Every structure is written in structure tokens, then in C-alpha cells.
């Protein structure tokens, strides 16, 4: 079931949480709402769920073409998983999962036996077949998360909404659950929207990423699209590390009044000068204890630092030491008009129209 939200505006007191936001979630897709805290992503998710409502007179929410703008949460057919799970402490896991079925009107309510069967199925689905009799306090964080998911699925929702689903978990469990959720989605194919502030999580997990900032949608695209063709300085900075140069400190000639962005993995290091575009620098720090090597260099002319990320093989080949002279070559750069850089907090929505996509190697 597809979701379409049109012109959603939401104000809390004087702050605008959402400013005329449009969103389309295609049927069966796994979509991430990605943005820093305060960007409005959770508010948007809550409006889709019917837990919050857009400002009076603004906006429209449709599920598969049907207007649900004023439908209360309980009748939208959404499954909602809360960041801190919101499991009912005084109920067992099985009672939690069965809750949505037991509050159905008597004529629609399955029998006790049917409910028990359904709960067992769900417990198997989340790979926790034996915890039905336990209380939430007796489960680990990852287990609670999966129980919350099972509870949301028990009412057979048409749409699954997850608010920071891995936010409260430690790194190891996070990784595991991420993979599990992806496989799970592929199996049941339920239209799913999740909110996250973790770009790695969004890029790795989602079919489509919606990048948000300051109450607006900044860019929508596949993970590869938003990463490789960021529409604005905000998007390029938010999706991973990047070296940024203002026009005044731009190391490359001929880039005009533009700010220059280059990802560390697009920075190559040479021991010898390599043409007029190579930048003279000195090695300041080498970090080689990871899957790739990271080198911090300081420009010879103005002492700006530049981060580079090279393979470990390349790092060995270069045989760099702190203090060594080196020359830097950018493989791929991205230019944005200077104005959009200095005012990146209030980027006009047409900023990406003025973007120069100058993806050329130098």
C-alpha cells in the first residue's frame, strides 16, 4: 500500500516542525526518513500514523489513494514501533502481542484460541518462540524491539512505521537487527517507513532515502543517488565525512565563486607533484588501524587540514610518515555556489538547480 502526504505543515507553538512537506512512499518499499534531530522526521512519521495531525487546513495524507487525513490512529491500519518500544509493563509478552486483537469490537474479535495461535506465529516470526510468558522487563533491548514489532504486526497493518528503531540499542545488536529487519522486509514486503538520524543505517537498509532538514525534505532518492548526487551542501555534509573549502580557501583554480566539497575517499596522495592541480601538503597524522587508512594532511600554503582515506595497500605503498611532504590530487569534487554554503541553514529549495555537478577527475 502506497503512502502519499501532500503539503504537510505542522507548527508547535512558534516553531515550524514541518513546512509544506510532500512525501510519497511507493507500495512495498522500505523508506528511511533521515535527518538530524529537530529536522521534523519524527513529526512526519507521527502524522502518517495519526498520532499527530497537520495544522488545520494544511496537508493531506492518503493511503493507497484513500484520504486518511482525519482518520484516528487506531483506524488507519498502521503498525507503529516506538523508539523505546512502549511495551506494556504489566502484561506478558504474549499479552502485549495479543493486545491489538483483544481490543477489537466483539464481532470482529478472534476467539481466544485463534489469538493464541496468532501470537505463537508472531513469536516464531521474530525468532523468540519461548518468551511469550515473560514480562518485558525480563527481555534484552533487542528482544523488546522485536516484541514491539510483533505487537505492531499482530493487527495485520497495511503500513509499518518505525521511529528510530535501533536508536536505543548498542552497536553490536544494532547491526544484527538491521540485517534482520532488511531480510524480514524482503520476506513480507510490507510498505515500511523508518526514521533515523544515522546516515549509515539509512543508506545500508533503505530502498529509498528521504533526507530532511529544518522542517523540509531536502532530497529523495535511492541510497546511491543521495550519496553520489547530493542536491545540496547540507546533504553532502550530512551523508558522511567531507572536506569543505570556502571560495577564498579553494585550493583549485578555475572553480569560481563556489564552495568545493570532496569526500576523503576521493582524495589521493602522491609522493611527487602531479601537475598544476596537485596540492602541496605535509602529513600530520596517520591512522592505519581500520579497514582503510586515514591520513590527515596540512596544506603547505595556508595550513588547512585535508582528510584522505586510502586503501591499506595504497598506504603501505606510499610508506608515509608524519612530517613527510606529499601532493594531493582530488579524484572527484562537487561545487556549490558560495551563497548556498554560507547560508546552508536556510538553503532555498531551488538551491540544487544552481548546483554545478562537476564530477570530473582532475
Amino acid at each position, binding site marked *: 500500500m502506497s503512502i502519499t502526504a501532500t503539503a504537510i505543515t505542522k507548527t508547535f507553538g512558534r516553531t515550524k516542525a514541518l513546512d509544506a512537506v510532500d512525501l510519497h512512499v511507493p507500495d512495498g518499499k522500505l523508506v528511511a526518513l533521515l535527518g538530524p534531530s529537530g529536522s521534523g522526521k519524527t513529526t512526519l512519521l*507521527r502524522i502518517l500514523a*495519526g*498520532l*499527530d*495531525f497537520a495544522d488545520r487546513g494544511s496537508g493531506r495524507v492518503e493511503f493507497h489513494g484513500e484520504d486518511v487525513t482525519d482518520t*484516528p*490512529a487506531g483506524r488507519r491500519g498502521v503498525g507503529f514501533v516506538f523508539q523505546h518500544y512502549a511495551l506494556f509493563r504489566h502484561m506478558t509478552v504474549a499479552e502485549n502481542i495479543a493486545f491489538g486483537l483483544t481490543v477489537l469490537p466483539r464481532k470482529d474479535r478472534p476467539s481466544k484460541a485463534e489469538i493464541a495461535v496468532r501470537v505463537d506465529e508472531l513469536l516464531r516470526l521474530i525468532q523468540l518462540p519461548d518468551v511469550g510468558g515473560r514480562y518485558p522487563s525480563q527481555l534484552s533491548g533487542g528482544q523488546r524491539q522485536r516484541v514491539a514489532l510483533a505487537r505492531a504486526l499482530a493487527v495485520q497493518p497495511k503500513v509499518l512505521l518505525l521511529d528510530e528503531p535501533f536508536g536505543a540499542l548498542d552497536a553490536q545488536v544494532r547491526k544484527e537487527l538491521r540485517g534482520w529487519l532488511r531480510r524480514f522486509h524482503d520476506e513480507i514486503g510490507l510498505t515500511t517507513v523508518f526514521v533515523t538520524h544515522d546516515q549509515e543505517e539509512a543508506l545500508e537498509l533503505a530502498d529509498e532515502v528521504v533526507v530532511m532538514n529544518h522542517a523540509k525534505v531536502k532530497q529523495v532518492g535511492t541510497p546511491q543517488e543521495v550519496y553520489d548526487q547530493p542536491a545540496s551542501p547540507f546533504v553532502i555534509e550530512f551523508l558522511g565525512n567531507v572536506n569543505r573549502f570556502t571560495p577564498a580557501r579553494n585550493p583549485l583554480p578555475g572553480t569560481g565563486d563556489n564552495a568545493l566539497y570532496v569526500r576523503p575517499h576521493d582524495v589521493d596522495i602522491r609522493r611527487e607533484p602531479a601537475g598544476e592541480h596537485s596540492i602541496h601538503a605535509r602529513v600530520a597524522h596517520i591512522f592505519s588501524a581500520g579497514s582503510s587508512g586515514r591520513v590527515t594532511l596540512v596544506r603547505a600554503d595556508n595550513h588547512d587540514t585535508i582528510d584522505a582515506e586510502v586503501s591499506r595497500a595504497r598506504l603501505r605503498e606510499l610508506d608515509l610518515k608524519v612530517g613527510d611532504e606529499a601532493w594531493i590530487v582530488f579524484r572527484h569534487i562537487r561545487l556549490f555556489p558560495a551563497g548556498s554554503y554560507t547560508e546552508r541553514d536556510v538553503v532555498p529549495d531551488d538551491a540544487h538547480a544552481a548546483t554545478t555537478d562537476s564530477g570530473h577527475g582532475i
Partner: protein
Amino acid sequence: MASALSNLQRTVSAPVVRPRALRDPLWLRLTLMGVAFLFLASFLLLPLVSVFAEALRRGVGAYLESFNDPDGWHALRLTLLTAAIAVPANLVFGVAAAWAVAKFEFPGKSLLITLIDLPFAVSPVISGLIYVLVFGAHGWFGPWLSEHDIRIVFAVPGIVLATIFVTFPFVARELIPLMQAQGKDEEYAAVTLGANGWQTFFRVTLPNIKWGLFYGVILCNARAMGEFGAVSVVSGHIRGETNTLPLHVEILYNEYQFVGAFAAASLLALLAIVTLVLKSAVEWAHARRHG
């Protein structure tokens, strides 16, 4: 047992406007508000208002005239004197107990906290009775006291002692959780910077607990001035000598001097109103500071 009640850490935040999904339907809101207001109006507001209405039943003149009663003035003075002894005594105790409990670890601590609560669980009448048993004519020290012509029961000392007993936990109950929550880091810092014990207490601890202290004192004072049952047992009801204001109210009432009784009661009701206003003001100031 009143531990959960008079706690300054109670938040008094305004209710936030809740998302629509969390709001009760209008009919339910109106019903519950109606029930709540009717209940509070009939059980709280009505008695409070009736005190003043009864006092003014025969007009302002009769009301004012009823204050022309030397026994009444004596009762008021005794009430103030009792509070002036009981409140500071329990204040010092409360601070000492809270310091010991919050800043140190020792075995039997939770038993001590329970014992401090004990007077709350004892009926006021029994609070008076036990002092009669100890100091009364038939009590432990009775013969010795009468030999030396010292009167405790049916005299002012007994009234003060019984009042101290019933107001015993107020300040301590307020300070113990407050100081436990604040921890000991600031005191440790003061000590490492060279402060001695009293400097640490007066310059670091006291500023941190002053609102809680004041709050406890307000409640302690209200109870000290208003105590009836315990004082009634130990006072002996000697007019112009061992009558506190609440006991004076009782005597006038039993003599069918209703205007006089309610006039004296109106003073105590005013005390209650001032107490509630101060208490709310402290809660408000505290909530604003600690958000």
C-alpha cells in the same frame, strides 16, 4: 507514611497540550472535571468558607468583639510559643538526621528512616497518652517530678513535648530524599578545597537545601500550631493557662459560643491559607529553578 505527600520534588508542571490521540473524549473530560470539582467543592471549599461565614454570622461587630477575650489571647500566645519551640527543635533534628542519612553509609539506615516516620503512623491521642504515661502523676517520673514541684503534664512543657512528637518527621522527611538526590560531590569538592565541616554545611549544603528546608518548616509549623488531639490529652484544659488556640476553639464551641469559636477558628483557617499559599510559592520557585 506521609513520605510521598509533602515532597518538594513533586513536579508542578503545567499539563502540556497533548496529541489528539491521547486526549480523552469531550464527554469524558467534562464528566471527570465535573465530578472532581463537585467533590473538592463539597469536601474542601465548603468547610473552609463555612468557617468564615459562621464567624461573621452575627455581623462584623460581633466578630471583632469576640477577640476581646483575654483567654483567647493567652491561647494564641501559647500556640505561638509552642510552635516557636517545636519547629526549631525539629528543624535542627531534621538537618542532623538528613546529614547522617544522606552523606554517610551505615547499617540500619533504612530502619532509621522508618523510625523517623513513626510519629506519622501514631494516632494523635496516643501521642499525648504516652507522655502522660511517662510524666503523669502515675507515670515513671511522676513521683520524682511532684517531689521537686515540676509539672510537665497538664502544663506547658507537656504541650510542647506532644507537639514536638506529632511534628517530629516533617523537616527530616523533606530533607532526606532531597539531600540523597543531591549526592555528596559538592561537599567533597568543598572539603578538598580546604573548607571545614561548618563552612561546608553553611556555604555548600545549606544553599542547596534551603527550599526544601523552608517547605518542611512551613508544614511543620502548620501542624504545630493546629495540633488538637495530642495537645488535648496533655493539656488538662486549664483556661488562660494550658489552652492552645485549637483547644480554645473546642471550649468555646462546647459552651455554645459559636461566633467566638468560629472567630478563633477563622484565625487558624487563615493560618492554613497562608500555609497553602507559601507552600505553592515554594513549589513554584523550586520548579522554575529546577525546571
